[in-house]
């Protein structure tokens, strides 16, 4: 049988156990009590105080539609298929624009939607993007009342208007 049960049978062991119990508990209490004055709090009061996110933090995806060349590499890399892209041929005779890093935009982007409710924030799509227009923003507060609200159309006027706020430097 277990030794602990046998110990309590002995008179001497009983008092030794009692003393041991009290002393170790007081020791633990003392460690906790020290936190009253000796240790600074580590928690932050969230809505008022906000942590500065690290440079590489992966929050909501943002596509800078002006630089997108509709290559669909991000949609193919996505493990959960949450990126919806549609594009059409440019009408003949249109001037071919260039992205910020010099790639020609040969297709007209007609839809670029990301279902952020489905997105798993793994970052695989941003690493394959040739023009680096698809990035993780630092925006993490985007709860919605309906699940359809989580679908972000990056060609919509309001999202384009946010561009300066969302795009990293």
């Amino acid at each position, binding site marked *: 049988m277990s030794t602990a049960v046998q110990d309590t049978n002995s008179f001497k062991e009983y008092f030794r156990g009692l003393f041991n119990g009290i002393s170790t508990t007081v020791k633990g209490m003392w460690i906790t009590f020290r936190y009253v004055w000796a240790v600074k709090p580590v928690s932050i009061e969230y809505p008022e105080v906000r942590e500065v996110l690290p440079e*590489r933090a992966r929050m909501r995806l943002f596509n800078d539609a002006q630089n997108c060349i509709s290559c669909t590499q991000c949609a193919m890399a996505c493990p959960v298929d949450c990126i919806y892209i549609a594009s059409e041929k440019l009408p003949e005779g249109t001037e071919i624009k260039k992205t910020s890093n010099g790639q020609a935009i040969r297709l007209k982007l007609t839809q670029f939607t990301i279902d952020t409710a489905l997105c798993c924030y793994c970052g695989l799509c941003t690493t394959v993007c040739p023009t680096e227009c698809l990035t993780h923003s630092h925006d993490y507060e985007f709860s919605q009342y309906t699940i359809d609200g989580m679908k972000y159309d990056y060609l919509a006027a309001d999202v384009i208007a946010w561009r300066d706020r969302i795009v990293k430097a």
Partner: protein
Amino acid sequence: MQTRWDIGEPEKPTINIETEQLKSELLTLNMGPQHPATHGVLRIEIWTDSEIVAHAIPHLGYLHRCMEKHSENLDFRGVIPFVDRLDYLASMSMEWTYVAAVEKMLGTEVPRRAELLRILTAELQRIGSHLMAFGTYALDLGAFSPFLYAFEEREKILRLFEEVSGARLLYNYIWVGGVWNDWTTEQLSRVSTFCDTMEEEAKKYHELVSLNKIFVQRTANVGVYSLQDCLDYGASGPVLRGSGLNWDLRKNVPYSLYPEFDFDVPVGTGELGQVGDCWNRYYVRMREVVESIKIIRQVLTKLEPGPVMGKVPKIIKLPKGEIYLRHECPRGELAFHLVSEGDAKQPYRLKVKSPCFTHVSMLPRVAPGQMIADFVATVGSIDIVLGEVDR
């Protein structure tokens, strides 16, 4: 089997006929799936006789996400985010095991710096995971403050991982061929300061919890797995080492650069009870934290500037064949059985051998005869993560 409780011979009923007609039967009690002591969504059906557990049946599947089947439709890079979600408290170790299996089939050479960084992250992750185990185990047994102390230290690790990979829990950091980002000198110096504080903290934890009389009484001689049980069921990790076998894949079947490192493998010795009880399993974990700190310190001295990504084809296609590769993860031996059909972009089959699954299956072995409170202590001491059990 030894139990703390022995019912002995039942007394002969000598009272009137009415009491004789009263029958006693076992009460079925569902522990979980929302029970906080089951560490996730494990449902354990226990048959109790008053407060004594007569039988325990674990019911799995509440967190089943079809990960193995799903990964058959993903490219080899796309599986990594899913592998992360297996053991969400030790994602780095999960990623490393999977990636190592792919690399071995692909024949990729990993740069030395990347391999060292992998060891660094895996060992930091081991500390983080064991801190979580420590905190929640104390929480299971009714002590609240150790949980907060553990999370204070774990937060430092998560912050480092967030800075280097971009996420706090599901990193997608270790890639086929290397690691995603390099660590800066500033971050590495913070790792070194963390090692110093963590050593001090570990001493504090021992004073606060490990040697506390109440904690020892709750855990010593409770939930004893004999070594033979562990070998029969195929246990691994701290459960096996807590039962007294010196078996660590990092030492016994060395992989990666582990042979270069000098560290010990803590084994349960049964100082305060029997070998293989809850206290020994807990104590093995706490000593492993110190060993991990040793390894991290050696990594920091060995690190030299260099590339962190090897040469990998843009689209990974594995040759025909299969591989079974296992690594020592915080919870035990994790293994991936990866089968490739040849020149395919997706795995033909990806089977996960999870240590937690084995450990859950060991619960019915030790449950009969335990008090319910002791059973909670046993469930906590094997430190399971249900994401890995159900997959």
